[in-house]
């Protein structure tokens, strides 16, 4: 039995549930829009072993019966607050319930898309870039600074820059131009991330276990997610990756502890492949609908299979960027 935890109105959750139904695989939807109201769990750890069940309004699922779990948390706007409580009490209890669910999923002995720790690297893009580079992918020259002079020097070194947020807070990627140069002194209030502009085609790679789905995106937009909003054309098509790039994509997803990831690449006119970011909770619907790539099917099959041979690191010794002080120099 597959456990899907997400929002009914979320397109990714909706598509995945539809695909699981098409396949005829049994599943339960834990509706995070209403959770924890109407839901419950009774879970015991005895001698470190996990037993028990989780239940929804009209179902109960034994933990041993779960073949795979998918979770996609919702923002506050998608949640129904707990009734009859002050906002502070409701927030505290909802956070506690979410944490209970996350810890429960982390402790399951089956594929979980994705376990809690895997997604955290995305909260610091330059930290993640260092891990990406260690996995063998080329990253764009990057400057993180609150120093206007450093930006001017970096700009002089490169043929155009883009800028974006450093943290996981969503931002639109923009070209750095004269207007930004004139406002550069404001940077002293807080740092931003600047990268050399890399020309070429965007390629989004979705990993599902050990499968890869690469989608080439052709557009004039700097941030193709907003191409149509900016009145620019956008075309997508399935594409193949060079074997070394494909292997590096698998390695980076594995290193970050992600069974499912969205990896943002760009292929330059010279045939170089740059990696910009790894999204631990990718909205793959957009790509699947444009190209017909069977991403949701692969997810459904992974979750149904219960396969644990798709390896993700279980401790720091297998995870680059973390570990003993003196091991910092050791190749990851």
């Amino acid at each position, binding site marked *: 039995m597959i456990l899907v935890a997400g929002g009914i109105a979320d397109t990714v959750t909706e598509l995945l549930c539809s695909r699981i139904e098409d396949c005829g695989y049994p599943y339960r939807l834990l509706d995070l829009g209403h959770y*924890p109201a109407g839901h419950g769990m009774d879970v015991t750890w*005895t001698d470190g072993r996990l037993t028990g069940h989780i239940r929804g309004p009209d179902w109960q699922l034994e933990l041993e019966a779960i073949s795979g779990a998918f979770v996609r948390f919702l923002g506050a706007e998608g949640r129904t607050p707990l009734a009859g409580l002050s906002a502070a009490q409701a927030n*505290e209890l909802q956070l506690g319930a979410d944490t209970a669910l996350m810890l429960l999923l982390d402790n399951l002995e089956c594929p979980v898309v994705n376990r809690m720790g895997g997604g955290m690297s995305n909260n610091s893009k330059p930290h993640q870039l260092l891990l990406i580079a260690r996995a063998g992918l080329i*990253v764009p020259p990057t*400057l993180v600074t*609150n120093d206007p002079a450093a930006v001017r020097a970096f700009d002089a070194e490169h043929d155009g820059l883009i800028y974006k947020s450093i943290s996981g807070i969503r931002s639109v990627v923009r070209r750095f131009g004269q207007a930004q140069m004139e406002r550069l002194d404001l940077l002293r209030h807080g740092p931003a991330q600047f990268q050399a502009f890399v020309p070429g085609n965007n390629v989004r790679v979705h990993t599902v276990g050990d499968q890869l789905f690469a989608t080439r995106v052709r557009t004039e937009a700097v941030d193709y997610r907003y191409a149509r909003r900016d009145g620019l054309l956008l075309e997508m098509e399935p594409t193949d990756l060079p074997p070394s790039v494909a292997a590096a994509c698998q390695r980076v997803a594995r290193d970050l502890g992600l069974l499912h990831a969205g990896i943002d690449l760009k292929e330059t006119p010279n045939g170089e492949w740059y990696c910009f970011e790894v999204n631990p909770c990718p909205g793959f619907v957009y790509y699947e609908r444009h190209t017909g790539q069977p991403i949701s099917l692969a997810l459904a099959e992974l979750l149904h299979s219960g396969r644990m041979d798709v390896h993700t690191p279980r401790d720091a010794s297998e995870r680059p960027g973390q570990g003993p002080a003196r091991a910092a120099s050791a190749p990851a």
Partner: protein
Amino acid sequence: MHLILGHSSDSFCGAVLSRLTAFGLTAGIVDAIFAPATRIDLRIGPDGKTVRPRAAITLRNINPSDVESLFLRASGAIDPAGWNPNDHAYVQAETQAALLAWLTALDCPVVNRIGADLWYRPRNPLLYWLPLLRRAGLTVPEIVVTSDPEAAERFRRNLEADEVPGAVCSSLVRSQGWLVGPAEWAGVAALQNYAPVCLVEPHHTPRTVCIVGCKVIWDGAPTPLEATLDGPLRRFAEMAGLDLVEVTLGRVRRGWAVADVDPLPQLLHFAKRTQSQIVDAVTDLLQDTPSRTVDLAEVP
């Protein structure tokens, strides 16, 4: 220079600073990490095949190339004074993200060199550590997470049958727990109307132990039985990627169990003599300098 990112009011920071300076080393505590004079300049690249992160955060006139080691005790909260709440939250997130990258890129000893998971959530409930504890060969008290009042009652009855008084209601959000006595069970049931509660088997008088690098430092000499836990404790710290971690152990019905894990140990939890041993071990780690240069070009 040996840099301590933390607060001067933190006795651990003060003790490490004193020990380092006693050795004649240059050391300093930086508490307001992102005070206005801070200049962040972190460069990654330019050639991805030969990425050499050149990290530089100029902290209060400290030349970044002079940083010989880093003892990490705080993640750099920004004073909210003068900011509107939304802007403050944004700048806080951005600067903490920058600082994590800088720490990742540092090519000197860092205690603890943590990943994003612990950077953003340094204090976690015991359940977070459970898979690693189990793999290291350590046990935990019996734990129930339940929204079912009958299950809570069953847990209570089982404990009482073994003459264990009450249970610990443990917050999954904060590092807090409350002993649930006979009068509090109705309150637990009331909470269960809204969300699951975490109930933990209580333990006897706790024993604290600090793992520093390869050293397992007990607060007072360990009994032969306690000493058998040295290997599993060392293994746990290694798997967690922690050079410094405080573990609280307590006797439960099935023997010794881990009751708490804290990657930000508090010296005050230990006797004076043990504190000294811990500080010595930490300063040893911070002075360990051989082959520290990260050469990512050699990474396959």
